[in-house]
């Protein structure tokens, strides 16, 4: 099975082509960039370098979130459009799991995190069990303070992973002390080959049309609206006319 994996959840753009477990090519660019201008040219270059036709791809794998809303939509829309229009399978993988999977050779807890602003983070807790990455605590939007309080109770070693970790390292160490471990720069960067590997065994999406990013947060307008309104009837907000 040939898999094309793509991630635009945060600053980096990463694309990879795999033939089952074999990585045929991978490209990651980690600069401030406009994902809509970068992603498709990178995919095109990767396919050309590997002499692969887009029609030869069997499965499209995408990092589905959480992450930057606009960024997520670029890769998710690209992947779902490809899968639908070429009638191939589509897999969505947590953008946090993709980072957690960078940290191998440990059975300790792995906590990937992204800065969600206002002292909040997008995070989850992962662990390798029998060679498979398992979710210990589901991805969530939570204050850093609450996350660290929960991890402190566990009193276990924790590996923090992600480019935003450096931003919070003082707070993390203040609470967890020597239980907190940090990883190398290469592990903090998303690698689409890792995404492809996770996507190889994952269940494909059954409703490709309905596939959308996992934002983990409602928009502010919706949050405020729900405070004073009954949300039933949400299915009919968009209608063909």
């Amino acid at each position: 099975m040939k898999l094309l994996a793509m991630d635009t959840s945060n600053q980096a753009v990463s694309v990879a082509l795999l033939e089952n477990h074999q990585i045929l090519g991978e490209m990651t660019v980690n600069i401030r960039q406009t994902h809509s201008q970068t992603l498709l040219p990178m995919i095109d270059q990767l396919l050309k370098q590997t002499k692969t036709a887009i029609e030869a791809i069997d499965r499209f794998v995408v990092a589905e979130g959480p992450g930057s809303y606009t960024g997520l939509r670029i890769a998710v829309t690209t992947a779902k459009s490809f899968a639908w229009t070429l009638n191939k399978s589509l897999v969505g993988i947590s953008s946090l799991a993709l980072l957690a999977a960078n940290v191998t050779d440990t059975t300790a807890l792995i906590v990937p995190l992204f800065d969600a602003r206002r002292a909040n983070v997008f995070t989850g807790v992962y662990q390798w069990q029998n060679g498979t990455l398992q979710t210990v605590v589901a991805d969530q939007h939570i204050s850093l303070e609450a996350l660290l309080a929960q991890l402190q109770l566990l009193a276990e070693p924790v590996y923090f992973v992600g480019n935003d970790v450096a931003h919070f390292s003082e707070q993390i160490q203040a609470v967890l002390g020597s239980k907190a471990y940090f990883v190398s720069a290469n592990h903090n960067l998303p690698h689409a080959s890792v995404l492809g590997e996770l996507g190889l065994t994952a269940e494909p999406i059954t409703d490709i049309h309905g596939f959308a990013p996992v934002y983990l947060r409602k928009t502010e307008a919706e949050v405020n609206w729900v405070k004073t309104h009954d949300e039933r009837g949400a299915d009919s907000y968009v209608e063909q006319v």
Partner: protein
Amino acid sequence: MSEKRELILAFESSCDETSVAVIEDGHVILSNIIATQIKSHQRFGGVVPEVASRHHVEQITVCTQAALEEAGVTYADLTAVAVTYGPGLVGALLIGVTAAKAIAYAHHLPLIPVNHMAGHIYAARFVKPLEYPLLALLVSGGHTELVYMPAAGEFEIIGDTRDDAAGEAYDKIGRVLGVQYPAGKEIDRLAHLGQDTFDFPRAMLKEANLDFSFSGLKSAFINTVHHADQIGATLSHEDLAASFQASVVEVLTTKTMHAARQLNVRQLVVAGGVAANQGLREGLAKAIKASDMDLDLIIPPLRLCGDNGAMVGAAAHIELQKQHFADLSLNAVPGLDFPYRG
């Protein structure tokens, strides 16, 4: 061998409608699927960009499938893929742009970038062939422009609003009257039941340029209503709407007729969401009749006045002839505009 049909798969997602169409030869609609988010944004009293972007992702492929099925065509039949890349909400535009790029790439089809406002003008092509030079009055929630077209696919702004767009003014005074967003249709209905009794200002009517301003009218309207509230008086909503609409229509009509006379055009296209307004349609028709000008007024049918993929396909037909294609790095340009006439 029969000649291959020119079929364009056209995408539009600049604001709160996800639309995909299949257009033949720039003037035959084989399908025009429109998914509107109006009910969603009515919760907030206006379009919330992040909410709009989220809806677009959920709608984009299902609308494309419906467009292809209704048109009864396959990818092999298509000549090109076209997409609105601006102006509009950046996050919303990006969904159409991203999907169109992926689909064009997957099927090795050329990609045609289309200016949304050119699309609105070319909605008129579904009524009849366009003859150049022509004049277009573009009126929507985001724009109020007079556009001169010396030839097909060439656009020059000759008049523009200095502040609010006409549609925006309708929504703002609609809020004051307690009319649900988008307010244009209801204000238009109320206006036909009332009289122009308030004599609101007609901004910039005496000035020689072709520009517009609606913020003074909006303020006059709001002050009138607030003053009445303070003294406990009740004003007729019908008369308020009629007075407001009379001012908007008189200003738009007068400036448009000035422009038509100056430029000696034979066709006048009225396009954009506010082109659906009955008061404006009647006002322009009356002004043309009263003049000595041989001016052909073209207003697209209601369904094509709002945002839709068909108009994008019609504009793309011209771009295809000019071989204006985009590469894989095409981005959304939220502030895209026509050049101003030098």
